[in-house]
């Protein structure tokens, strides 16, 4: 795996997690359940855990968007030539 491939892999890695987190938030909003730690948390049955996971996903999206928008252009995109 050369540096360009690894840089591309990193972008795909981050984008995949952002998409996954956004899908999870969408499912949480529409279906009232959210996935974490290998299981679903239902808003009706485990409200506390449901909101904890929701906050966690929002935090994840904020951090990864920051890295994607501010860190990658300076540190990573140079490897794409």
């Amino acid at each position, binding site marked *: 795996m050369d540096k360009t491939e*690894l840089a591309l892999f990193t972008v795909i890695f*981050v984008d995949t997690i952002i998409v*996954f987190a956004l899908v999870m938030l969408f499912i949480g909003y529409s279906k009232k359940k959210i996935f*974490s730690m290998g299981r679903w948390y239902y808003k009706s049955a485990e409200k506390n855990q449901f909101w904890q*996971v929701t906050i*966690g996903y929002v935090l994840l999206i904020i951090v*990864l968007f920051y890295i994607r928008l501010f860190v990658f252009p300076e*540190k990573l995109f140079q490897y794409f*030539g």
Partner: protein
Amino acid sequence: MGLDVESEITNSINAGNIVTAHETPVSFVGGTNVGYLLIDPLTGAGAYKIAGGANGGFLSSDAASILGFLGFALGVIGAGFSVPLLVVISAVIAIIIAISLILDYLAINHRCTGLGYLIGLSVLATLAGVFSGGILAVVIMYTGLIAGGGAMSAANSSICKN
């Protein structure tokens, strides 16, 4: 600048790269550092380096170690006491360390093949940990990062480094 830095700059210029460096060391985050850029004019690819070991990543090795320990502890506590927020925060920390690991690795100019795959595998382990559950997921995430750190050490070793 240290002799090793001057040697690296000389070698890079001899290889046809464009090197940019400042005249005197700069003060940054409470310390004095030497930074320099090695750019290939044909492809635009290059390395943004800081003398003393730090390079392309955004976390120092100390910060990564402390964050790693904190993330692992939060993950284990969260999984053990069913606090999903702690597990997700643990996953966020693991992802941040994984990204910094990759950026550090990319900035190393080495000749050993296959280490990139090991770094990629360690990041995939982090991803697998994010998608699965329980204490095992936390262990998988951070074991992957430790394996990636091993690959980094190998790339930095005198055997591999150019």
